[in-house]
């Protein structure tokens, strides 16, 4: 067997079902594949060729499970360890790792849970997909590049002529994520941290909102529930709108607060937190 074929078969085994001695017999294409692979493995006193392959499969699966468990500890806590491993097992069959960075393994997990809630038997936990989305964003921001140098650029903002201000577009730090949900995912996330002190029951129908994740200017990872105003500003910034367009949009939509007031309140906060890290025309 050529090296490429051996590697293909071995990797299929790693992402496949638990290997037992019966797999050395012919059981369809996977069974016969394992049979051919098993023939290439020299037996040892401590295991048949199938058992030796299982050592590698078990070790690989444990590593992949551990990586997902590290990214989604709240999800694991919500569904229990055993059920979580079942979800992971299904997930890995559909989304095997395609990056050298094991930290990217969970990129499709929230969507997978949302799209397959019925088959995965998690339809009674409708918030699970959004909670895992929050966890994924938290994990992603941790490994982002730090961009504090761009903050200096903001000092030049005060020097922009008044008639040019409407044309300003802001750049957002790569270390920011916004997650919207109809469920109280921030409270759920908080209540399931190891350091959590809030033991009150959470009514999952109490309503949700926007949760914002970012790394502040002291490089501390932060997560906060944010107001509708901040959330809509963030969405506008993500759409790369000019300051003039944002002002116009908020004058049209806002009932309680005009856009000028918002600019005075929201913009400085976004800058002080390092969420906006620069501007251009």
């Amino acid at each position, binding site marked *: 067997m050529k090296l490429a074929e051996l590697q293909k078969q071995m990797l299929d085994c790693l992402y496949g079902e638990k290997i037992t001695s019966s797999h050395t017999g012919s059981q369809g294409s996977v069974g016969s594949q394992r049979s051919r692979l098993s023939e290439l493995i020299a037996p040892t006193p401590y295991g048949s060729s199938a058992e030796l392959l299982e050592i590698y499969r078990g070790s690989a699966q444990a590593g992949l499970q551990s990586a997902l468990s590290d990214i989604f500890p709240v999800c694991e806590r919500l569904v229990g360890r055993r059920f979580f491993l079942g979800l992971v097992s299904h997930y890995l069959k559909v989304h095997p790792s395609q990056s050298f*960075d094991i930290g990217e393994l969970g990129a499709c997990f929230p969507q997978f849970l949302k799209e397959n809630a019925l088959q995965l038997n998690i339809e009674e936990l409708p918030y699970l997909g959004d909670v895992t989305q929050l966890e994924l964003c938290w994990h992603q921001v941790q*490994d982002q590049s730090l961009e504090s140098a761009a903050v200096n650029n903001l000092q030049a903002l005060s020097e922009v002529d008044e008639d040019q201000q409407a044309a300003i577009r802001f750049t957002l730090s790569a270390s920011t994520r916004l997650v919207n949900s109809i469920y109280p995912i921030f409270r759920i996330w908080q209540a399931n941290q190891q350091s959590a002190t809030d033991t009150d029951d959470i009514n999952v129908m109490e309503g949700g909102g926007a949760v914002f994740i970012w790394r502040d200017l002291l490089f501390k990872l932060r997560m906060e529930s944010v107001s509708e105003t901040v959330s809509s500003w963030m969405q506008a910034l993500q759409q790369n709108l000019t300051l003039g367009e944002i002002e116009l949009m908020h004058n049209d939509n806002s009932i309680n607060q005009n856009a000028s007031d918002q600019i005075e309140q929201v913009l400085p906060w976004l800058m002080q937190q390092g969420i906006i890290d620069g501007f251009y025309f």
Partner: protein
Amino acid sequence: MSNSNLKGVGVGFRDRHFDDILEQDHGIKWFELLTENHLTVDSIAFYQAEKIREDFPVTLHGVGMSLGSTDPLNQDYMKKLKVLISRIQPELVSDHLAWVSHEGVYGHELLPLPYNEETLQHLVCRISQAQELLGRTLVIENPSSYLSFAHSEMSEAEFLTQLVKMSGCDLLLDINNLYISATNLGFDALDYLQALDANKIKQIHLAGYDVQAGGEGTQFLFDTHGFPVREPVWQLYEKAVSLYGRIPTLIEWDTDIPAFNTLVQEAERAQNRLDSATRTELLEGHGAKRREIEKNEFRVA
């Protein structure tokens, strides 16, 4: 034989030990960084690597180059590694005699290779390519093995010796891996030590293994990097350094990571074993010259 800036015993860097490393007077001479943990430029992990590098020599040790894979080298990985190398200036850059991916799918597990002419030619080509891309010599580590392939045509030691000659790479000898493989697959670890070219061994790894249940009441050794170095590995280490001389040695501990002080104590044990084994060697008048080891003196299986 040894890299000029790497002396004595180092330990693997883990981020939870960052403050201890910079603030304590611990005596550790150098650190090894897990390449994949530091590849994102200007991330916190990248910054930590740079801070460690300001005070200590470092080496980079990877698990993701997938040198044995028949896929093309992952250019994204190689580019990021090149940037990391240029910023960190490591003393050595190492990866494994293994593969972790095929057709773009990653198993994140160091997987075994058949030791035959096809694999040898493939690896020589891959290592040469990687060395050219990175502009430096790679250091290749022997894996821990739980199986061997019936169509292997040479022993792992013979394979590595050929690989070194043909590709110009250097070797990282993991004594724990060697002990595990020798015990599991039933070969003689001392023959293995004697077969390698001492001049090409640039680094040694030490770690702890676990004993696990195999089929029908048997046991096998499993590489966890989650325990103190076991006594048989210490003994094999002493044999290795008495044979090769004072090779820079690293304590690896990757799972159930203990307090930094535990790693410091383990490094002190390694330093004592290194001093003791190489002192004996000098007193016997052999220096770094190879000596024949009585095979009955030490058996691994």
